[in-house]
C-alpha cells in the first residue's frame, strides 16, 4: 500500500512539475487577460468582422489541409504501395521540404514567379498562400499516411482482391483503414496552416493569424491580441479534441518494428506517369526553392559563402547543441506522458502537451516571459532552459503521440508475461518496453530535433541575450544583407540540417536493423 502511495506521489509531483513549467504560464496569461476587466476588449473580439476573418482563414486553411492531405496521400500510395526504382530516393527527398521554413518557400516562389512570368501579382493572393502552404505541409501528410499504409496487413488486401478489382479494393478497403491517418493529416495541416503568419504576411493576405500578429507587433495591443489568440486556440482545441473523441486516438503515426507487413505492387507500365508526378512535386517543393537560393547566392557581386559560413558557424554549433538537448528532453517527457496515457490511463500530462502545442508561438513566448522573468527563476529565464521549455511546449505533443503509437503496438501480454514471471514493474519497463520502443523513441527524437532546429516564432521571443542561434541569425541578418549573403546563409542553414539528418538517417538505419525483430 505504501508503495502505491509513493508511486502516486511521484506521479503527482512529475505532473505538477510539468504543469508548473508549461501550462501555468499560459493559464496565468489567460487569467490576467480575463481579469483585466476591459469589457470592451472582451466584446470587441466577437464581432462580424472578426468572425468573417476567422471564416476566411478557416476556409483557406481547410483548402490547404485538403490539398496537402490529398497530395500527401497520393504520394504515400505511390511510394509505399508500389515497387519501382528510386522510390527510396523520392521518400527521402520529398520529406526535405519539412526542413525549410514556410517563409523561404514564399520568397522563393515569389522570385520564381517573377523569373518565369515577369509578374508576381498572381502569387500575392489567397491562392499564393494556399499554394505555398500546400507545398510546405504535404510531406507531413505523406509521412503520416505512408506510415499507416505500411501497417496494413497484406491479408486484408489480398482478401479484398479475391472479390473486387484493385481500384475498388483500394477505395473500399485501404482508404477506410487509413482514415485515422487521413484525419490527423488533415487536422495537423489545418492547424499548422491556420497558425502560420509568415506566408500570408509576406503575400499581404489578411488572415486571423496576421491580424493577431498585427495587434501584437504593430499596435502592441496585448489584451486584444491575446483575446484573439484564445479564439484561435479554442478552434484548434475543438478540432483536436473531436479527433480524440471520434477516432479514440487511433494510431496516426507508427514506426514499424517489424518492417512493412503490407503488400507492394508493381508499377508496371505506369512508371512514366508515376515518375513525372513525383518529379513535378519534387521540382515545386524542393528544387525550385533550392534553385532560387543557389542562383541568388551565385549571381551576387561577391561570393558570400565564406562570410556566410563565418557568420553561421558559432550559431550553428549552439543551435545543434540546443536542439539536441531539446530533442532529448522532449523524447523523455514524451515517453513519460505517452506511457502514462497508454498503460496507466493517466491522460492529463498528454492533454497538457496538446494545449501548449496549439498555443500560437507568440502567445507561448509572452506567457513564458511573464511567468519566468522573475529574479528567483532567472536561472531559467536568462539561460537556454527557457528555450528548452518552449521547445517542449511546442513539440512535446508530437513526440508523445509518436511514442504513444509505438506503445500501442507492443502487446500488453509482453508485459504481463514478465509480470507473471515475477519481474517488478520498473524492470519490465526497462527490459521489455523500453528496448521495444527504441525505434519510436528514435523517430520522436529525430523529428523533435529537426523541429527544434528550425523553430523561430517562440525562439525569437525568449532566446537569452547574447546567445547566437542559427535560425534566428539567418532570419535577423536577412533583413538588410545583400541577397547573395542571405541566400548563402539559408543554403548553409539547410545544408547543416540536411547533413545532420543524413547522419541521423545512417544511425537510424543501424538502430532499426539492430532492433528489428522479424
Amino acid at each position, binding site marked *: 500500500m505504501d508503495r502505491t502511495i509513493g508511486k502516486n506521489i511521484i506521479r503527482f509531483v512529475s505532473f505538477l512539475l510539468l504543469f508548473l513549467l508549461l501550462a501555468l504560464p499560459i493559464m496565468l496569461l489567460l487569467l490576467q487577460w480575463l481579469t483585466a476587466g476591459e469589457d470592451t476588449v472582451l466584446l470587441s473580439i466577437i464581432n462580424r468582422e472578426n468572425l468573417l476573418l476567422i471564416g476566411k482563414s478557416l476556409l483557406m486553411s481547410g483548402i490547404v489541409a485538403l490539398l496537402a492531405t490529398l497530395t500527401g496521400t497520393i504520394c504515400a500510395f505511390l511510394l509505399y504501395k508500389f515497387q519501382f526504382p528510386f522510390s527510396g530516393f523520392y521518400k527521402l527527398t520529398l520529406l526535405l521540404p519539412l526542413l525549410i521554413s514556410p517563409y523561404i518557400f514564399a520568397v522563393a516562389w515569389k*522570385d520564381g514567379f*517573377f523569373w518565369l512570368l515577369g509578374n*508576381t501579382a498572381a502569387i500575392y493572393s489567397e491562392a499564393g498562400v494556399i499554394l505555398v502552404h500546400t507545398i510546405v505541409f504535404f510531406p507531413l501528410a505523406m509521412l503520416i499516411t505512408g506510415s499507416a499504409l505500411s501497417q496494413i496487413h497484406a491479408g486484408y488486401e489480398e482478401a479484398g482482391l479475391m472479390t473486387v478489382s484493385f481500384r475498388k479494393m483500394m477505395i473500399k478497403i485501404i482508404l477506410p483503414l487509413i482514415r485515422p491517418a487521413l484525419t490527423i493529416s488533415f487536422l495537423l495541416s489545418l492547424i499548422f496552416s491556420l497558425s502560420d503568419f509568415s506566408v500570408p*504576411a*509576406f503575400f*499581404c493576405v*489578411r488572415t486571423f493569424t496576421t491580424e493577431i*500578429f*498585427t495587434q*501584437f*507587433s*504593430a*499596435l*502592441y495591443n496585448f489584451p486584444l491580441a491575446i483575446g484573439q489568440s484564445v479564439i484561435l486556440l479554442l478552434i484548434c482545441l475543438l478540432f483536436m479534441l473531436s479527433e480524440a473523441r471520434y477516432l479514440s486516438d487511433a494510431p496516426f503515426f507508427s514506426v514499424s518494428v517489424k518492417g512493412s507487413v503490407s503488400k507492394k505492387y508493381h508499377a508496371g507500365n505506369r512508371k512514366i506517369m508515376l515518375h513525372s508526378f513525383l518529379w513535378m512535386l519534387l521540382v515545386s517543393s524542393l528544387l525550385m526553392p533550392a534553385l532560387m537560393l543557389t542562383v541568388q547566392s551565385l549571381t*551576387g*557581386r561577391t561570393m558570400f559563402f565564406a562570410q556566410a559560413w563565418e557568420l553561421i558557424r558559432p550559431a550553428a554549433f549552439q543551435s545543434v547543441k*540546443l536542439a539536441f*538537448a531539446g530533442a*532529448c*528532453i522532449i523524447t*523523455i517527457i514524451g515517453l513519460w506522458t505517452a506511457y502514462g496515457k497508454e498503460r496507466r490511463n493517466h491522460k492529463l500530462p498528454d492533454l497538457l502537451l496538446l494545449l501548449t502545442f496549439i498555443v500560437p508561438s*507568440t502567445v507561448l*513566448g*509572452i506567457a513564458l*516571459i*511573464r511567468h519566468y*522573468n*522573475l*529574479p528567483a527563476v*532567472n*536561472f*531559467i*529565464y*536568462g*539561460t*537556454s*532552459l527557457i528555450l*528548452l521549455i518552449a521547445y517542449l511546449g511546442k513539440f512535446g505533443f508530437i513526440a508523445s503521440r509518436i511514442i504513444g503509437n509505438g506503445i500501442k503496438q507492443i502487446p500488453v501480454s509482453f508485459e504481463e508475461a514478465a509480470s507473471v514471471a515475477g519481474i517488478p514493474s*520498473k524492470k519490465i519497463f*526497462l527490459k521489455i518496453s523500453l528496448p521495444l520502443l527504441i525505434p519510436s523513441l528514435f523517430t520522436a527524437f529525430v523529428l523533435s530535433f529537426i523541429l527544434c532546429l528550425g523553430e523561430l516564432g517562440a525562439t*525569437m*521571443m*525568449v*532566446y*537569452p*541575450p*547574447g546567445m547566437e542561434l542559427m535560425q*534566428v*541569425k539567418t*532570419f*535577423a*541578418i*536577412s*533583413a*538588410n*544583407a*545583400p*541577397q*547573395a*549573403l542571405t541566400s548563402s546563409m539559408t543554403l548553409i542553414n539547410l545544408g547543416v540540417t540536411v547533413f545532420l539528418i543524413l547522419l541521423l538517417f545512417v544511425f537510424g538505419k543501424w538502430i532499426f536493423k539492430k532492433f528489428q525483430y522479424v
Partner: protein
Amino acid sequence: MRHLFNTIVLFMLMFTACNLSPDEVTVYCTVDQVFSEPVLKDFERETGIKVKAVYDTEETKSTGVMNRLIAEKDNPQCDVLWSGDPVRNSVLQSRDITKPYQSEQTRLIPDHFKEKDSHWIGFSARARVLIYNKTLIPPDSLPRSILDFTKPRFKGRFSIANPLFGTTTFHMAALFESLGDEKAKQWMNDIKTNGAVVAASNGDVKKRVMNGEMAFGLTDTDDAFEAKKESDEVDYIFLDQQENGIGTLIMPNALSLIKGSPQNENGEKLINYLLTRETETKLAKSCAQMPLIKGTEVPENVPSLDNIQPMKIDYKTTSEKLQVIQPWLKAWTEQ
C-alpha cells in the same frame, strides 16, 4: 536509470552554467545585425565589457524585442535599447519603460534629435529615399516629390512597404504631421488608386526595384546604399528637396536606457560609446548612415545632412501621431 538521471542533470548544469558577471551589458537591438554587431563587438573589445545582445529586425517587425521589453517591464533584463528609429523608444516611454539619461556625450547631439527629457537620444540617421531602377525609368522622369506618386504616369509602377510596420509607419505619421490629416489621408487613398504595390518590408521594396519588378519605391538610405552595391541598375534620390518642399524624413537611431535595468552603469557606458564620432563614422561606412555629430568624418558616397532638406517634424509628437493614426493605417492596408 541512474546514468540517465546523471546525464540529464549534467545537461541542465551545462545549459544553466551561465554568467551573471558584473562586466556585461544587455542590449536589445532593432538595427540590422549586419551593421550593429561589429560596432558592439568593438565596444566589447575596447572596454572588456561583455555585450549580450538580442537582435531583431524591421523584417521581423521587431516583435521579439518590443514584446519582450513590454513583457519584462516588472523585471527588466535589458539595459539599453538601440532602435533604428525613435518610434519604438517613444512607445516604451509612454509605457514607463525607459528612463532619462544625460551625459557629456549626449550633449553632442543636436536637441532636435533627442527626446526633451532624454528618454531617447538619437545618433547616426537614415533618411527615406526613392530607390529606382535605371533601366525602367530615366532619372529625369522620376517624381520629385512624394506627392507626385499620384500622377497617372506612375500608375502601378511603384511600391511602398506595409505602413503598419517599421520606418514606413513613421514616414506616414510624419506625412500626417506635415500635410495635416485630411491631405495625408487623401494622398494615401490616391496612391492606392494609382496602383501602389504594398510590399512586405523595405527590403522587399528594394528587391522588387532591383529585379525590375517595380520602377521605383520608397525605402531607407541603408537599403538603397546596399542595393547600389549589389546592382548598377539602381540608384536613389532624396524627394521633396525643392524650395518650399516638405523635405525628406530623417530617422535617427535612438538609444534608451531601460528603467530598473540590471547593469545601468554599463548601459550608460555603452550609450556613451555609441554617441561618438567614431561610431558614427563606422555606421556611415558600413550602411551610409548620416552622422549627427558635427565634424564627423564620412566617406564620399555617403550624403551629409547638411545637404539635405529635412522634413520639419517633432519626433515626439510624430510618435504620438503614429499611435493615433495606426487604426486608420490598418484599415487602409486591409482595404
